[in-house]
């Protein structure tokens, strides 16, 4: 379970989206940023939780991405949905365009993954990407609509999850052993815990604080 204490900065209305004739018409309420997705009781979504070994080193060479189901990134209402995702290296990332307008899908990497910048017209075919290097928060953006962003985190193992709106996360099929659990929020950084995972599984709770 991930929770947030304190009051994060208020989200702001995405006024350029509202002012865009095509994109603005796709929203009935003013669209806002989603940097801190927090429930009534502090349930904190969009936190990437992953496992490292007991010494805090990355788990590498364990990717099953080539055989895993693809993850899907949609463009809907001139926003990316979801905005925080995680995938394995070698796992397909499918980008859809559900909007009535053109987007360019532009991924930028700081870890040496291939940078893409592709056109995706309304109703056009999905775009499929794979990335081969682990990376935290690799950015996807649309430069036609410069408020559109999504961040895809890539791991070289299947041992990760993204917390949901209830603040919960599940990492499946973890072999028993001692691990370092790392919880990372794009704005608030990392927290770590070392835990023993028995056959029956284990739980870890993290509390972030908005300063």
């Amino acid at each position, binding site marked *: 379970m991930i929770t947030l204490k304190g009051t994060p900065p208020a989200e702001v209305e995405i006024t350029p989206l509202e002012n865009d004739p095509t994109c603005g018409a796709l929203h009935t309420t003013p669209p806002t940023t989603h940097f801190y997705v927090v429930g009534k009781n502090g349930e904190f979504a969009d936190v990437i939780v992953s496992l490292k070994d007991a010494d805090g080193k990355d788990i590498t060479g364990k990717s099953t991405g080539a055989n895993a189901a693809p993850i899907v990134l949609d463009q809907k209402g001139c926003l990316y949905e979801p905005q925080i995702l995680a995938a394995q290296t070698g796992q397909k990332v499918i980008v859809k365009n559900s909007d009535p307008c053109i987007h360019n899908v532009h991924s930028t990497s700081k870890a040496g993954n291939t940078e893409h910048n592709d056109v995706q017209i309304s109703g056009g075919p999905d775009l499929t990407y794979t990335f081969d290097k682990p990376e935290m928060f690799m950015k996807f953006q649309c*430069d036609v609509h410069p408020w559109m962003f999504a961040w895809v985190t890539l791991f070289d193992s299947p041992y990760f999850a993204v917390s949901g709106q209830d603040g919960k996360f599940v990492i499946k099929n973890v072999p028993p052993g001692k691990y370092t659990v790392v919880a990372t929020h794009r704005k608030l950084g990392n927290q770590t815990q070392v835990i023993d995972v028995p056959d029956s599984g284990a739980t870890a709770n993290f509390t972030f604080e908005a300063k």
Partner: protein
Amino acid sequence: MTNVKFNRSLYWFAVLTAVATFLLLAAGGMVTSREAGMSVPDWPNSYGYNMFSFPPSKWIGGIFYEHTHRLWASTVGFLTTILAAWLLWKDPRKWMKRLGVAAFLLVIAQGVLGGLRVVLKMDNLGTVHGVVGQTFFVLMCSLALFTSKFWLRISEQPKVNVPGTLRTLVLATTFLIFCQLILGSTMRGQHAGLSINTFPSAYGKVWPDTSPDAIQMYNAQRVEITNVNPITAFQVILQMVHRIVALLIFIFVTICAIRAWRQLGKSDALTKLALCWFALIDVQICLGAATIWTNKAADVATAHVLVGALSLVTGALWCIIAFGRSVRAPETQNEAFGAFGTFAGNK
């Protein structure tokens, strides 16, 4: 001896090209300010269309800024080509012919640089593209000056010495402005928005905390709509250096204006130009502050880029005119190069 006669048509065409270049800087500035540089993924085509037949109905969002920038750049390239050819054909000064060819080559290089920035997806090339654009603008304004009646009149007048210390001071200040423009272009090329969002203080301090914890706190507090790259300590320091250099430029330009007033007299053209320079720097500082207070509003940030370009050009033209007056401008081709050499030696 070759007498250079004023060619009104050539002069106004050079002015037109310089104005078009200024507007191109505005268009380019808007591309970066609107984060639209990669909104047209292909080059030299636009979304698979020939650039000139890309339907206006598809110029939506960031595409509008990037595509109009490309079209306007093509116009400037066309004007520059004509100007270069005109200089080669009509201007008797060999060095002017060479400057025309240099302008032609530079505008081609600048266009290719802009295209490569898109095709190779390299932010750093965008920074270089910005700096070369400013340099090209200086060259175009210089060509307009050299074809003007004002310049030819200077050439015919007896030598009027502009004190060497004043010339050196203006030259050094102009170079400082050029360095400042490189800093500014680098900052804009980070696509991280404002690394310090307060002015005149920096996060409430004279010098901001750049420790990892502080940087994380700044990032946590930012709620960006565009320019979402996290800021780094390097970017915070970069903006502080930009502020310090701005202060130095203000001091130097003020000294230049005062010394020009005292040493050349208030009615001298160079004094008037120095006062204009001082006014531009004042406006530029206000625009720099406004860029922060408006959270880098696109039009304000672009105006900041444009006044920066005008400040650079003003300093450069001041130096050129001072040189033209201090060393009797030659009317023969060979003397002209000698004169430029003398100017370099006087620095």
